[in-house]
């Protein structure tokens, strides 16, 4: 339903009421009720995912303008959703769960396609009731292939697999058994990599019909028992970067025919190691123009890997040099739970806190530009448009 209060209406009303006021200034003009249209996409927008943990069936995404410091709109993403933005930025894919009666009744798992240009629902596709449900919001629980043709959706029942979806055909092509490995990190056009429980990487290749054509398993590249890596990784032009509980950086180059594991390096000096740790939810951001990494860090011991940061540490991803330690007023805003850098050459850094505050910072200087004291209920992750 699209309605506009026509000027005719106000005019008619004016005619009825007459024009009385003896004020010198002219009266305000009648307004026309209409619906806002989104302006052209800005690199300084962010999609803020509110898990709504106290009301989990009502997950939502807020579209936020980092320059104008205002909400642009929102859409619903349901229960324990997994989200991905399409390579052409036009669509958000939402793998989620609904019930026929709020949180009870018949369960429906569904892949919904939100039109990012109008914030309306473009369509949906039914899924079997297997969608992975995790409060650890990874960028790679759902992902698009680089050409946007395929979507990969992680399943966990707790058996682990992923579904390959043909976007144009709006159809599930296949389900690939991952032998207990999770995440769907896309590379090349037809390859998907997953993290395995023993610290290995599984890489599955498929054909245009979604049929698995090859799989390989790497040697262990990290020690799950001694220093596990967070699943909340960040994509880079050549692959992904993971952070470990103790603050080591694991970069995986997925641009070749086989995954290449870059030698891990430590964010901490010997005296800091084990004292200062990454923690929170979205624990690493990457800024391609400056080549910088951003990690929320806190002072704490084992088991504190979900504690938000009191500082944001900034590194040069190439030289491994620590550029800065930006303090955050964690007592005031809550510790930094999640970080996101915009992808342009005048980048912003968004920091979401444990209190669901949103800090907007200059990603080059660390200057705090704006604070939303409370945005939604539980702001757990953010995505770029």
């Amino acid at each position, binding site marked *: 339903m699209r309605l506009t209060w026509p000027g005719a209406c106000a005019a008619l009303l004016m005619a009825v009421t007459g024009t009385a006021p003896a004020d010198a200034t002219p009266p305000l003009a009648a*307004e026309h*009720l209409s619906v806002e249209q989104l302006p052209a996409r800005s690199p300084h927008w962010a999609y803020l995912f509110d898990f709504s943990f106290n009301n989990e069936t009502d997950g939502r995404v807020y579209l936020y303008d980092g320059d104008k410091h205002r909400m642009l709109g929102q859409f619903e993403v349901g229960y324990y959703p997994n989200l991905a933005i399409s390579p052409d930025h036009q669509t958000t894919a939402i793998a989620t769960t609904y019930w026929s009666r709020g949180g009870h009744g018949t369960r429906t798992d569904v892949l919904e396609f939100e039109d990012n240009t109008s914030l309306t629902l473009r369509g949906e596709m039914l899924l079997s009731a297997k969608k992975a449900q995790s409060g650890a919001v990874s960028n790679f629980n759902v992902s698009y292939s680089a050409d946007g043709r395929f979507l990969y959706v992680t399943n966990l029942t707790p058996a682990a697999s992923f579904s390959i979806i043909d976007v144009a055909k709006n159809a599930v092509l296949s389900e690939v058994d991952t032998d207990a490995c999770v995440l769907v990190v896309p590379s090349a056009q037809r390859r998907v990599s997953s993290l395995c429980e023993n610290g290995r990487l599984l890489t599955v290749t498929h054909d245009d019909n979604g049929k698995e054509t090859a799989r390989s398993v790497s040697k262990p590249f990290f020690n799950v028992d001694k220093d596990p890596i967070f699943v909340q990784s960040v994509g880079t032009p050549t692959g992904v970067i993971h952070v470990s509980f103790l603050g080591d950086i694991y970069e995986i180059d997925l641009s070749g025919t086989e995954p290449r594991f870059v030698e891990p390096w430590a964010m901490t000096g010997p005296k800091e190691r084990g004292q200062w740790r990454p923690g929170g939810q979205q624990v690493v951001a990457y800024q391609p123009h400056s080549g910088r990494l951003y990690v929320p860090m806190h002072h704490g011991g084992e088991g504190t890997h979900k504690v938000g940061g009191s500082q944001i540490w900034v590194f040069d991803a190439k030289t491994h040099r620590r550029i800065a330690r930006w303090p955050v007023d964690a007592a005031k805003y809550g510790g930094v739970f999640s970080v996101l850098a915009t992808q342009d050459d005048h980048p912003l850094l968004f920091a979401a806190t444990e209190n669901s505050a949103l800090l907007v910072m200059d990603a080059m200087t660390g200057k705090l530009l704006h604070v939303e004291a409370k945005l939604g209920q539980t702001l757990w992750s953010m995505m770029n448009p």
Partner: protein
Amino acid sequence: MQQRLDRLVELASRGLARRTSRRGLLGAFGMVLTGTALLPLLPVSRGARAEAAEPATAGATPKAPSKAASDPNACEYWKYCAIDGFLCSCCGGTSSTCPPGTQPSPITWIGTCHNPVDGRDYIVSYNDCCGKTSCGSCMCNRNEGEKPMYRLSLNNDVNWCMANDNPNYHCSVSVILGVANK
């Protein structure tokens, strides 16, 4: 003149309230709505100022306009004098436009708000924007001249999205219709 308007809209409203057989009302209603000239169907609030019978502690003398009274993101904004809900200006809309992807409520109620800047009373239409789960930002609870649900045409408790295809309440706007007669 104000009385004439009240009377006119009141007549419309009474007709509306009476045509309540199961088939009747929404059909007739829908017809009106699909027309191009959309006359507000529900009565005009007589406004806080008219409630002379009721003593006011805040005092009826005009105050200097506060800064918040001019800020469309503030609950104190003059136009919001009887909004009980989330301000659309915090949700991707403005004080008079709905956020992207929502639908305005075709039914609503209209009231009178005093603009301290020009000293005029304006007739405003309070519409809800519908079709998405609640915005949750900028909760604002003001009730000048608001009445309980049995005086539906002056009530802001009911969900004015009730007649929308998707009656989910998202946020509220206040749209200037014109100057109210003193």
